[in-house]
């Protein structure tokens, strides 16, 4: 009851003030903050997305920038100033070639099953490789594939996007060209050793590369699928 009263009694703060609020919230967090979270923390009636836009423009060209990560926003130092920074952060265990390739395959082919990763790399994917990527929180489980055995799929996370400075999976370097060249398809082998149908898979992928859907996907529990 007190809430509704507040809502009706007080107007949202001016946009300039909202911008200050977004500034404070983004500065305070090392992790990207979603618009939803911003809205929850700002006074009723605020418009976080407008405020973020203002802030983003304000920090263009500055020593720190407002970056979009998936559906969230974060402040990061400008890349050209990296040389000034002390490498305080402990370097993550050096990733093996297998892990790097597996990560790239998941990013470009998501959602992708383990069998598909193995098909692309031509070798078995060791348990440790997937584990390492899961531990880094660069990949996570996606929806189960609606094929026999209902295998789990892997997709990349917001942390992945943040780490590599990507707004979304659509911004992966060269993703358009690779798609155009048909290299992101999973073509069945002519001798039928490969079971996945390319049509179904591409539908999945279309969905995933769709902005709205990524959020939707994030909330979806794999087991919710029948």
């Amino acid at each position, binding site marked *: 009851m007190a809430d509704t009263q507040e809502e009706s009694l007080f107007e949202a703060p001016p946009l300039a003030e909202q911008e200050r609020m977004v500034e404070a919230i983004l500065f305070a967090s*090392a992790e990207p903050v979603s618009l939803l979270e911003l809205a929850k923390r700002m006074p009723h009636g605020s418009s976080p997305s407008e405020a973020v836009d203002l802030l983003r423009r304000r920090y263009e060209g500055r020593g720190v920038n407002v970056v979009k990560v998936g559906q969230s926003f974060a402040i990061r130092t400008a890349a050209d100033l990296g040389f000034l920074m002390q490498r305080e952060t402990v370097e993550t265990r050096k990733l093996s070639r297998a892990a790097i390739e597996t990560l790239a395959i998941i990013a470009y082919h998501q959602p992708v099953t383990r069998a598909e990763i193995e098909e692309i790399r*031509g070798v078995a994917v060791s348990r440790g490789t997937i584990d390492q990527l899961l531990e880094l929180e660069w990949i996570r489980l996606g929806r189960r594939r609606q094929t026999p055995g209902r295998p789990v799929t892997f997709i990349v996370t917001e942390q992945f996007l943040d*780490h590599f*400075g990507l707004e979304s999976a659509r911004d992966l370097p060269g993703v358009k060209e690779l798609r155009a060249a048909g290299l992101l398809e999973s073509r069945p082998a002519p001798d039928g050793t490969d079971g996945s149908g390319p049509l179904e898979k591409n539908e999945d992928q279309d969905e995933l590369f769709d902005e709205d859907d990524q959020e939707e996907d994030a909330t979806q529990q794999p087991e919710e699928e029948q």
Partner: protein
Amino acid sequence: MAHTDTDAGTPQSVADRMAAEELIVDVDGYEGPLDVLLTLSRTQKVDLRQVSILQLAEQYLGFVEKAKELRIELAADYLVMAAWLAFLKSRLLLPPEPGEEGPSGEELAAHLAFQLERLQAMRDAAARLMARDRIGRERFARGITEDVTHRKVVSYTATLLDLMQGYARIRTKDEFRPYVMDRDAVLTLEQALDGLRHVIGAQVDWADLVSFLPDGWTADPKKRRSATAATFAATLELAKEGKLELRQDDTFAKLEIRRRARDG
């Protein structure tokens, strides 16, 4: 480069053979047959889309041969690939037999070319990805963070109805007690005896039992009933003691009592 001797008539160039040897020296460093095929395909120095699968098959078979000569244990999947490529090679070289089932050599070759191109594309993509400005290397997150403290605010509410019901509850609470027989509408035998003993001594003439009911017990039918019953029981008690006598002319006629004469 100790092993330069080769079988006569091999179609491989010197460079190919050297490449195959280098492969073999480092065979553990390869991630399976597809990786080896991709490495071999680079020796053709052409775009992967134009790579000659037939030549590649021969290169690979040469690599496996070499490994055998050097008594290097190759994993099973390398040998499976060799067998498959030998099959592919025969398909590519021989005209298809009429009525033959299965995909053509060209189809199989095209798929292998696609696989190689795709793997190479993923490797390039991985390299580009890792070369991006990354958090903790070129770009940095906030050093001093502030945690968002979660504060739970409990707001208590009550409605006017709650309040009134609460008050009503208190106002009726006194009546809420363990159930006991409500005695205030009941005249006990003791009370009736007590009353009767006081008055009977003066009653010489017959008088209606009802006239002996105590004051205040006649108006309310419930009380009257109880008082009548108690008083009647009391007269019986006193009659037994020989203190009074009673008579009734007829069934349901009025009961009359009087003092019993001491001499009688």
